[in-house]
């Protein structure tokens, strides 16, 4: 047997608040989803002006990163490099989803959607950074 870390709701709220602050700072309206390591929602915010489509995409990016233990940027780049088979994988290969890692363990994922995908990723990164600082 072994023990493993897990995100608490307090952690989730820390990440969400920091990600939302990064978005507000840049006047971006986005949806932010945080999921556990099985890809199930722990917390979700859709800021005013973000669309229902953003809500769905944020969840899919976050789920992809959580269950594959890799950023969605990684999957997007694999396709850009010609590895079309990735399109058949159960991941959304669009930048803006990051795994959340504690030590050497993936404890979940965060997905952001609403602005350009590299900006979505910047927001996700800001959220995760707050967890390390907390």
């Amino acid at each position, binding site marked *: 047997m072994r023990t493993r870390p897990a995100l608490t*709701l307090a952690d989730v709220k820390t990440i969400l608040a920091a990600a939302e602050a990064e978005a507000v700072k840049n006047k971006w309206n986005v949806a932010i989803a945080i999921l556990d390591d099985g890809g199930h929602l722990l*917390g*979700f915010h*859709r*800021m*005013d002006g973000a669309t*229902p489509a953003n809500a769905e995409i944020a*969840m899919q990016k976050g789920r992809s990163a959580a269950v594959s233990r890799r950023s969605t940027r990684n999957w997007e780049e694999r396709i850009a490099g010609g590895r079309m088979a990735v399109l058949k994988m159960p991941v959304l290969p669009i930048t803006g989803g990051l795994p959340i890692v504690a030590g050497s363990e993936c404890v979940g994922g965060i997905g952001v959607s609403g602005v350009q995908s590299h900006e979505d990723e910047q927001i996700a990164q800001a959220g995760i950074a707050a967890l390390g600082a907390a």
Partner: protein
Amino acid sequence: MKKILLSVVVGAAAYALATVAYAQAPGYGPDINLDGAKKVAAGAAAEARNNKWTVVIAVVDTHGELVYLERLDDTQVASVNIALGKARTAARFKRPSKALQDALAGGGAGLRVLQLEGAVAVEGGQPIMMDGKIVGAIGVSGVTAEQDGQTARAGAAVVK
């Protein structure tokens, strides 16, 4: 003849009632924003914590699309989708999900509820009203249906 007349009268009365009830059904207002959703969820979370209940709280807009969600620590995983489903039911059917639960429990024609697309006929989904209009809905799952409903109503009551 008398019988026919009576049934016509009764029928007309029932029709009038139905018409009145329909006219009084609240309409949809503007979609709840993230600020409002956070307030509603905080009210529900406080109710859950006071009772030491572990739940998922979902808040959706008038279309049933997700605006806010939080999962209290150690809540059963299945409740994520159940809470969302209850909230969607309340928003899209313009009524508490308990209304569908009651219709189903009544049996007979009420069993049709099982065939309604997207209907979660379990208590715990509640429309959120502001200025007499539906602006979204809250769905709660994690404990018993009655307790989920109590939590959802506590949240919905935060805004007016």
